[in-house]
């Protein structure tokens, strides 16, 4: 591989493929470089039982609305891969699979893209390599005694591969609560370490809570209208699970299953895990925030929306005396599962556009280096950007900016 192309898209997930869709629509010649296959992360970096948090009717891509039999269901990983494969072939995306980008740097009027298959020069580059390339694990993981097996969601597939015995799940985002529930159901004792989190009921007033986010306009809020954008972009995923029964999987549900809740894991000292005593307040913050959100739904609905009566949910129950420490050498815990979030990997990006926290600096997907763009990051241009169906407007607008750049720069 060598030569020139107008645009290189990095990554053939939903974001890269949507970019390709709009580039083709504008007849801009391009190539989509993909380290593995289309939808690679969905194929290889997710646990077996995972389903999308968003209902099927929201799993729509440019020119590809959901037309299946179960609009209120949630896609399994196999179905997500099928959807992206279909989108790639329908839009005839020029995907070059098995091509890992090792460097992007400025060169002439554009960029030199180096891969394991050779180099390309491009006037513009769209970074669509995802927000969840690497699990984020705190530094004190190194102090966890060696006899305990440590896993991240990238390693975990299903409970049968875990050692018998207790599991300490760290983090109470969607990943943490889903894995805590699944592992508890396998019969293992589960302790869940809970920091700041986002509580949501699966359904509200008879409808999927994400229907309310969509319909009420919460997800339309633009990146330049959000008070604390960097916080909005770092927000943990909401405590939701996609199941046919549309069950709510909040901390009360986990407590009822026998999952023990402890505070945020703060440190390891002398082989003991030390947890924050601030558990009550993270519950209070999440409960108050959920109630404020539900109140905005009620206000938006007024009397004109077809939905059941207003609901308020039981506050998160505080354990009578949450444990502040746990002896990691005592044999109670055999496995630690770090559900402490993910981070993007820009180690290959040799353009100074990454901040000190390792995040790409951009304004609505327009990166501060001419001709460089990003798609598929949380709250990229609006709150909806975090989700699959947010990509259509984002990709259209970012590719329009890119086309304007091509037309106006020498």
């Amino acid at each position, binding site marked *: 591989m060598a030569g020139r192309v107008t645009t290189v898209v990095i990554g053939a997930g939903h974001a890269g493929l949507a970019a390709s869709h709009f580039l083709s629509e504008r007849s801009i010649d391009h190539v989509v470089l993909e380290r593995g296959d289309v939808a690679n992360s969905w194929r290889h970096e997710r646990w077996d039982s995972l389903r999308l948090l968003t209902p099927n009717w929201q799993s729509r891509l440019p020119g590809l609305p959901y037309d299946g039999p179960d609009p209120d269901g949630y896609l399994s990983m196999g179905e997500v891969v099928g959807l992206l494969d279909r989108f790639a072939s329908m839009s005839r995306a020029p995907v070059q699979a098995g091509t890992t980008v090792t460097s992007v740097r400025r060169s002439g009027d554009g960029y030199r893209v180096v891969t394991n298959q050779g180099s390309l020069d491009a006037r513009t580059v769209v970074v669509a390599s995802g927000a969840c390339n690497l699990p984020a694990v705190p530094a004190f993981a190194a102090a966890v005694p060696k006899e305990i097996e440590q896993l991240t969601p990238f390693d975990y597939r299903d409970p049968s591969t875990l050692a018998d015995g207790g599991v300490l799940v760290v983090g109470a985002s969607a990943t943490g609560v889903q894995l805590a529930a699944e592992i508890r159901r396998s019969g293992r004792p589960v302790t869940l370490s809970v920091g*700041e989190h986002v509580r949501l009921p699966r359904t509200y007033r008879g409808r999927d809570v994400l229907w309310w986010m969509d319909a009420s306009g919460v997800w339309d809020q633009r990146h330049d209208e959000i008070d604390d954008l960097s916080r909005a972009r770092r927000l943990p995923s909401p405590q939701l699970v996609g199941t046919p029964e549309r069950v709510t999987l909040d901390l009360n549900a986990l407590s009822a299953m026998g999952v023990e809740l402890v*505070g*945020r894991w*703060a*440190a390891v*000292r002398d082989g003991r895990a*030390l947890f*924050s*005593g*601030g558990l009550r*307040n993270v519950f*209070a*913050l999440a409960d*108050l925030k959920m*109630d*404020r959100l539900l109140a905005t739904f009620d206000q938006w609905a007024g009397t004109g929306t077809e939905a059941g009566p207003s609901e308020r949910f039981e506050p998160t129950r505080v354990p009578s*005396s949450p444990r502040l420490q746990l002896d990691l050498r005592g044999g109670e815990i055999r496995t630690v599962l770090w559900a402490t979030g993910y981070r993007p990997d820009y180690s290959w990006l040799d353009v100074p556009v990454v901040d000190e926290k390792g995040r790409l600096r951009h304004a609505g997907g327009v990166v501060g280096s001419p001709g460089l763009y990003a798609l598929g990051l949380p709250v990229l241009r609006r709150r909806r950007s975090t989700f699959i169906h947010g990509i259509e407007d984002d990709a259209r607008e970012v590719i329009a900016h890119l086309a304007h750049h091509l037309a106006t720069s020498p």
Partner: protein
Amino acid sequence: MTIDNGVNVQALLDARDVLKGAPEAAQFTWRAQSTWSNGVHSQTRIQNFFGLGAEQTHKSEAVFDADHPEVFAAQDNGITPIEYLLVGLAGCLTAGVASVAQNRGIQLRSVEATVEGNHDIRGILGADSDVRNGFNDVRVTFTIDADASKEEIEALVAQSQKRSAVFDALTNPTDVSVTVA
């Protein structure tokens, strides 16, 4: 109507913006200087601290007597050291409530806090090795009169905890080293 809780929120927001790009200036060191008086009575003085890249001085020196009550067979020349933790917690959370209220445009009329720390002293006496030395738990109850709904007041108190130095210092472990000079 102008909201005025006496907190200069704009200065704090400006400082946040400046310090985002200057983490070295955000490094503070708080200092106390203590001298044994007699028995279990000691006196601690605080005047200087380091911050914003330079030595700083309080307007005046503050002096704190720490002792133990007569039921501890002591002279009670001052409050018990562990009670100073309650002073710190109440002061920090109350400051947080006022600041957050100012930032959210909520006028406060009164803020009262009752702080209680439950303490099983068999720990410090060495009477039962299963009992810890410090508090078993701490309870803070706020009574707040303000132009705000109950939910808004609860959110003030929650946000104050979220940004409190002393709440963090009490609820999370801290590496403490004690050496002999």
